[in-house]
């Protein structure tokens, strides 16, 4: 699963969090964050579905009965290690919103222009 981009050593880091005031819509505390988390989860679920669909198509093309094989399969130690590392990126993406406040504070603009006055 070659998808842990965060560990590439010569990467040029970009800022992922939007600086300045965060948009809020719900009165109850934390609901805006929960929406973000749900959307992150839905996105990651879709990633899995695409990967699963590709795998099944490949397996079928090769004449492998995926359902039977899956039940008895075990990852090797190496595979397990790679998967564990992958899982950290997975969690970080889903709970991204919880690091936003801290990162936005770090990149805080001195004088962000205001939105038009609220009606």
């Amino acid at each position, binding site marked *: 699963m070659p998808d842990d981009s965060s560990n590439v050593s010569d990467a040029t880091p970009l800022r992922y969090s939007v600086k300045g005031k965060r948009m809020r819509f719900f009165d109850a505390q934390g609901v805006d964050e929960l929406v973000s988390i749900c959307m992150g989860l839905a996105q990651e679920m879709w990633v899995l579905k*695409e*990967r699963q669909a590709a795998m099944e198509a490949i397996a079928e093309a090769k004449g492998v009965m995926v359902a039977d094989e899956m039940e008895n399969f075990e990852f090797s130690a190496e595979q397990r290690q790679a998967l564990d590392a992958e899982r950290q990126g997975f969690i970080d993406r889903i709970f991204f919103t919880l690091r936003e406040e801290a990162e936005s504070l770090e990149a805080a603009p001195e004088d962000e222009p205001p939105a038009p006055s609220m009606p």
Partner: protein
Amino acid sequence: MSNDLIDHDLKVDHTKDESSRQHFVQGMRGYVLNDLAGNMKKVWDRKVEPAFEKANGRKPADGPEVHKTFKPETIFKFYSSMRCNTQEMVWRSVMPAIEREGADLAQRVQVLSQSGDKAQGTVDTNPNFEVPRYVSELDVHLMPGNYHEERIDHDVSQGAVFDNGLGVFSFGLLGDRMEDITESVSTFFQARYPDVKPEKILDMGCTLGHSTLPWKARYPDAEVHGIDVGGPCVRYAHGRAQSYGVTAHFHQMDAEHTDFEDESFDIVYSCMFLHEVPLKNIKGVFKEAHRLLKPGGVMVHYELPPNSMMSAYDGFYLDWDAYYNKEPFYKAFRDADAKAEITAAGFKADSFFEHVAPSKNLYGQDALMEAVKQEGATNDSHVGRFADGVMWYFFGARK
């Protein structure tokens, strides 16, 4: 895997999972802008507006009144919160590949910039350039790093973030090379104003140059220039142009204070630019355009249509971005009287024009030519929207 909409030499490789994330964001955008926006309008029409009318004996007068009335509704909150999240996910979904290839991309751009094989364009950036505060203090449309942030020498990353993000954002609606807006507007303009034979054309706030290059296709003999305050953008724009084999010249400059000589251009253009500029600076941009144009030269701006052209609800719908998408100057621009501002900058009032060009990508050349015959710009709820049916509004005047 690469973004299908990017077919030049600066494309980056996204992993399979990153591509899946992008597919999801495209699906989410379709859901939010079509399904959810459609449901929101129904709730407005069937519940919120009738209740307002009952209480006040009239309909809401304008966009802000619709906004104020709608804000407490759950559908508005979910539409808004999901639209913000989707917008942020657009950029985040493309960033990992650009982080991996950032240094290499910078090098690829330099090689393309220095190669005269396919095109002979130029680029100049200014290490002492001061980015205007209305850009430097903001992550416009929720894009972290905006158009200008730089982290390494010859950095083009923010250009790449914008290009790749736009590919996810537009889901094909911007046509080949994502140039449909200017492709449509410039085709319309050339057919409508056949007397204009430009030798020099300037594109202000050009970002990636997708608003610059179509002018070279319309007028192959003209010298075409693009300016932007973002160093990463003008470098990327030049690399992109060279890759496509289109000769164009890019400069890191502020549209209010360029280094060009008086009366040196025949067309001064901008695309999706003015609404990101405070009104006070827009006045400066119009004055600068007037200074740069030769007598008889034309200023042309592709933009979001003005609030005066729309219903109260559509005004509210389009102004949403000013409040929640970090485009705070957008509303003041859409509320302004473009004709009055242009006249104040020295243009002839009777030369003011406005048109709506149907998308060439979506409706074809024939529909575009048919529209050229019509007078003025008409009110149409499709104008300026990005979801269903695409019409491009533009206005301008002559010196």
